[in-house]
């Protein structure tokens, strides 16, 4: 089967004061139709840059795709012009962001904002677009959608705003939805509602989802496959269940163990949490021919400091970019 989205050897560079930095360094992955794929990692590891790269929304003049291809159904969208990209965004790929407060326009009603997408991308008339936006609000479970369509963003709660964002993103029934930390700003009970909604919409429309998060619990709950990123590089990739039970990269292992997860039964015992010493490297250190995690890793040796690890493929389809992958 051909993948819906195929990213090959993607390299995204940002011009910073420290020079040109590869914030995404040789990233390859595939996304199949209807699948949920999760990107995990600490802040500054390149999760959001990957999303912006795919959307063609890298910061102008500062960021660019230096090499590699992004194939959407066989079409290389890194070569697409502005007009074509605008068609792809919304129709084929759309995105929801972390901050539902700041991603909506405060001076338009939510109905107008959804209708705008439909008028732009599907050439609907004013009346039809409005009717569709009411239907969409209903589909994302906004109570009393007909009346609510005339509300302004500030009249909604955080959870409702994120629902509106989802309605806008799904207006043109895209094949891929990129969700960048969509629930980080929300309470857990609201988060659970949003995940259920995404899951239903995926079942209904067959939308593939790229979920960007830092929470391993979220990954376990909704994704089938996951990619762990560190300093702009993929360090591990595989099926969620396999990676969580048997991580093959020391960073993945650290990320799982450093969080006090809720277990099935809470017991008296509370061991110290595993610490991953140190912090994420600064942008200036990106792109070196070395393992960038070595300074925080207890398996690291001289070799790790001198040569960038090659990807180690396991029988389980897990991939780990670590010289000591067998010993993790």
């Amino acid at each position, binding site marked *: 089967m051909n993948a819906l989205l195929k990213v090959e050897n993607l390299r995204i560079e940002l011009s910073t004061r420290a020079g040109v930095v590869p914030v995404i360094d040789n990233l390859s992955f595939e996304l199949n139709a209807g699948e949920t794929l999760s990107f995990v990692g600490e802040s500054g590891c390149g999760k959001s840059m990957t999303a912006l790269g795919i959307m063609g929304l890298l910061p102008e003049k500062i960021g660019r795709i230096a090499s590699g291809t992004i194939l959407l159904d066989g079409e290389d969208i890194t070569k697409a012009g502005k007009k074509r990209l605008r068609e792809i965004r919304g129709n084929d790929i759309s995105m929801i962001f972390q901050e539902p407060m700041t991603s909506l326009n405060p001076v338009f009603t939510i109905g107008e904002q959804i209708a705008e997408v439909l008028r732009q991308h599907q050439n609907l008339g004013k009346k039809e677009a409005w009717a569709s936006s009411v239907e969409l609000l209903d589909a994302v479970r906004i109570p009393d959608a007909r009346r609510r369509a005339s509300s302004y963003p500030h009249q909604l709660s955080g959870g409702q705003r994120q629902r509106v964002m989802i309605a806008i993103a799904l207006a043109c029934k895209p094949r891929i939805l990129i969700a960048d930390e969509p629930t980080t700003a929300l309470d857990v009970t609201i988060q659970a509602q949003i995940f259920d909604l995404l899951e239903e919409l995926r079942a209904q429309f067959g939308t593939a989802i790229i979920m960007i998060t*830092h929470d391993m619990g979220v990954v376990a709950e909704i994704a089938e496959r996951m990619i762990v990123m560190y300093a702009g590089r993929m360090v591990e990739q595989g099926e969620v269940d396999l990676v969580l039970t048997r991580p093959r990269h020391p960073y993945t292992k650290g990320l799982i163990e450093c969080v006090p997860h809720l277990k099935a039964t809470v017991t008296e015992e509370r061991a110290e949490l595993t*610490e991953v010493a140190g912090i994420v490297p600064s942008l200036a250190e990106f792109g070196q021919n070395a393992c960038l995690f070595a300074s925080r890793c207890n398996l690291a040796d001289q070799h790790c400091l001198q040569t960038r690890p090659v990807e180690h493929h396991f029988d389980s389809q897990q991939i780990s970019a670590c010289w000591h992958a067998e010993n993790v």
Partner: protein
Amino acid sequence: MDTRTQNEILLDVANLTVRFPANRGVFPGKKRWLNAVDNITFTIKRGETLALVGESGSGKTTTALAVARLVKAHTGSVILDGKNFLALKDEQLRVARAKLQFIFQDPYSSLNPRLNAEAIVREPLESLIADDKTNHDQVIDQLFEAVGLRPEQKKLFPHQFSGGQRQRIGIARALATQPELVICDEPVSALDVAVQAQIVNLLRRLQHQRNLTYLFISHDLGVVQHMCDRIAVMYMGKIVEFADRMSLFNNPQHPYTAALLSAVPSVDRERRSKFKRILIPGDPPDAINPPMGCRFSSRCPVATIACSESEPPLKARRDGHLVACHLVSDSGESPVSITG
């Protein structure tokens, strides 16, 4: 170890209410109030960690601010180490403030950018501790070591530190006056997960070394489970459930607690298969016009008519587990089951 007994109550909060004026619009009219914290009562034992959990807007932070006198309580009393903290004045208040210190959520905005790390830690020493200043240097050196900062970092300014290191400075500042009660308001939620572990471990280590008592506020139930001995669950300004750690996490009785716990995504496959998700619809209602009767009744999956008629009192059930719900039986059986 102290000469006082371990079980002594360090903090006793009774009938605490905090309200804010909530007049909407420009016309003066009847004054309306929003009760951010509504008549809550709890105690913290010396050396233990009490967690306040709940969703945003439930009154966790306001409770902590009122306890520390950083917002004014409308009614109620806060007895800290035998003295009514809310009634203290001048010199007595200054002495008492040294016993109660605060660690804030945001390590970026809670440190003065114009002071270096040493001066930040020195500030509470100079304003709250009356003794001679000659041993302040020694105290500061010890604090830097205790929180894992190097001596040469004393001269650096906040912007030169990472988020985790800044939170370490915040912790050193809070410990400078040798407090007995430390209020930690979401101390790790602004940090990356790998750094969170470092700070959580540090807080627990310091608690053992210095016999500290924590009032710990968090929305992250995983962290709460790891840090805290007893937990108070808040919903719209009220405590709805109060229990020790094992009892609360393994046997939640209030439907809201059950829903909250069931909504936490977990990496533990056993937990995911054992617990079913209890979905509570909608958002918390308007805090200015809370629902009649039980405040959770408008979202509760098992609410009856009685629930919207009278407000359930916080009542002891089995094992000293306090619950405010009409539907929990006297033997502590919850009306909703999270396993199944």
